[in-house]
């Protein structure tokens, strides 16, 4: 049996800021070629974890190895082999699209000629070739994000870290980013991303951990997590009345679990249509009925009792 060495290995990893513990002893292993996700709401400790992996934030405790090296001692050597796409774009708005790539390439010791060539390829990859010579300032949010991703690839990294890669983008721009990231994944680049969008995690991640309050509450592939922590289908019932609570009581015994949210009631069942028929048989008349497949949102709700996006 051959064992694959993990590219990232964390054991009991802790990050404290004064009295506040942002990351509270997590164990993580990321294997080569994997797309690995940290899913959780804002403040779950995802970004703090990413910053430690990006070797710009020294761990407060536990053990962390990236590419077999110690991020505190070998920071520059590790960062030379990482690509980082931060949560907020920090491109230079005064430089052109291409200059943003070529100046960044210099930090990695990439010669001018090679940098230019690579910038050309990367702009082609993120579909910004036509904007190569225009300034960054007037670009749309989606274009800036793609340029930031291109910049993260300028050193041909072994691991690409993406912190909330599509937060703040409109749906069309998000899909374009996902599609590019999926292409990268197909090329065998190891992706590590944080997100609070369950659809993003489902689309991109081979494996993910669900984080809440600085801890990992579940780990596995999106499918495995849904199978373990949720039912096959979910019935969403919206009642016209002020309180959903009153109706929820009458649904007892229906399906495996009932979750009551401020604006709707979720019914976790194996067969959605059958459950809807049962609801109607009880004489209840919800204003709105939706049958859907379980998602990671449901997994999160089950594990923490809260929704991901408030």
């Amino acid at each position, binding site marked *: 049996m051959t064992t694959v060495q993990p590219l990232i290995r964390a054991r009991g990893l802790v990050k404290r800021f004064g009295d506040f513990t942002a990351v509270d002893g997590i164990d993580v292993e990321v294997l080569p070629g994997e797309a690995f996700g940290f899913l959780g709401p804002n403040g779950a400790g995802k970004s703090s974890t990413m910053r430690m992996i990006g070797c710009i934030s020294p761990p407060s405790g536990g053990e962390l190895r990236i590419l077999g090296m110690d991020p505190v001692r070998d920071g520059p050597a590790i960062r030379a082999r990482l690509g980082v796409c931060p949560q907020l774009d920090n491109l230079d708005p005064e430089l052109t699209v291409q200059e943003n790539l070529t100046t960044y390439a210099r930090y990695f*010791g*990439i010669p001018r000629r090679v940098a230019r060539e690579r910038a050309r390829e990367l702009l082609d990859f993120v579909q910004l070739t036509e904007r190569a010579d225009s300034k960054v300032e007037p670009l749309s949010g989606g274009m800036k994000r793609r340029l930031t991703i291109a910049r993260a690839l300028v050193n041909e990294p072994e691991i690409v870290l993406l912190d909330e890669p599509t937060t703040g983008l409109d749906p069309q721009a998000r899909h374009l980013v996902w599609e590019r990231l999926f292409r990268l994944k197909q090329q065998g680049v190891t992706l590590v991303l944080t997100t609070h969008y369950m659809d993003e995690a489902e689309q991109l991640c081979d494996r993910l951990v669900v984080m809440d309050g600085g801890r990992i509450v579940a780990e596995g592939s999106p499918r495995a997590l849904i199978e373990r922590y949720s039912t096959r289908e979910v019935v969403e019932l919206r009642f016209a009345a002020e309180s959903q609570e009153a109706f929820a009581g009458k649904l007892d015994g229906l399906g495996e679990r009932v979750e009551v949210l401020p604006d709707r009631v979720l019914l976790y069942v194996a067969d959605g249509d059958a459950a809807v028929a049962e609801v109607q048989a009880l004489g209840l008349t919800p204003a709105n009925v939706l049958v859907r497949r379980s998602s990671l949102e449901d997994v999160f709700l089950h594990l923490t009792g809260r929704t991901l996006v408030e």
Partner: protein
Amino acid sequence: MDGESGAVIVVDVASSARARPTRSRVPAFAVLHYYLVGYRRTWRAGVFSSFLLPVLTVLGFGLGVGAYIDQGVDGVPYLDWLVPGLIASTALQVALGDSTWPVFSNFQWVKTYYAQSAAPLRVGDILAGHLLYVLFRVLTTIAAFLLVTGLFGALRSPWALATLPVVALLGLAVAAPTFAYSASVSSDSWLAMLFRFGVIPMTLFAGVFFPVESLPEGLRQLAYATPLWHAVDLCRAATLGVAPQWSVAGHLLYLAAWALGGALLARRVFRRTLVV
């Protein structure tokens, strides 16, 4: 990061376009290169403040005010006496201007330092590269200034060229602590204060426009404490071809102390902000 003191890894990336790059040979030069690319786009806008303005000051004060000062100062025409003072104060203005808003922006607005710290650069490289750029700005501005004042015939000695290393040192002496200051303030209104309560009084009282001997004793001691006065005295000695009031070594050491102290302080503040 505190432990980042390993040797710089040098990899021959030129041998193959696909070779994996590791680090720049001199990482601070890669950082300097970034600023120079930006400079290529913006230098025209900076020409007025950093070059035309001092030339206008030379014309206004040197020729205008100078016409009323019949006996000159220290036995030389007022224009000739004033020019070295303006060389030093212009260097101060450029160094201060380039280490206030640009540094603040690199932390707060454009966040350039954060982008750089994700690359294989150390905090010291990020700081040194930006300081090198400020040095470049000071030196190019003063070189142009020397050219113009030389054409006016206001430089009386070939020693005038020695003002270049002097303003370089002055530039570091004021830029390095200002980097630390700009990195620690929470709002950019603190930056304007630095000009109001630092640059303007310094320029007025550190011997640029009139000899510090004309100041009352207390103010004179204050003038001696400013880095500007030390550079003014050296520059004046250079362009007039006379001995400075203080020992050259004393001046240089004093300026170097500001530069070194400032750089250490700036590195500490940068590290505290970037590596958290």
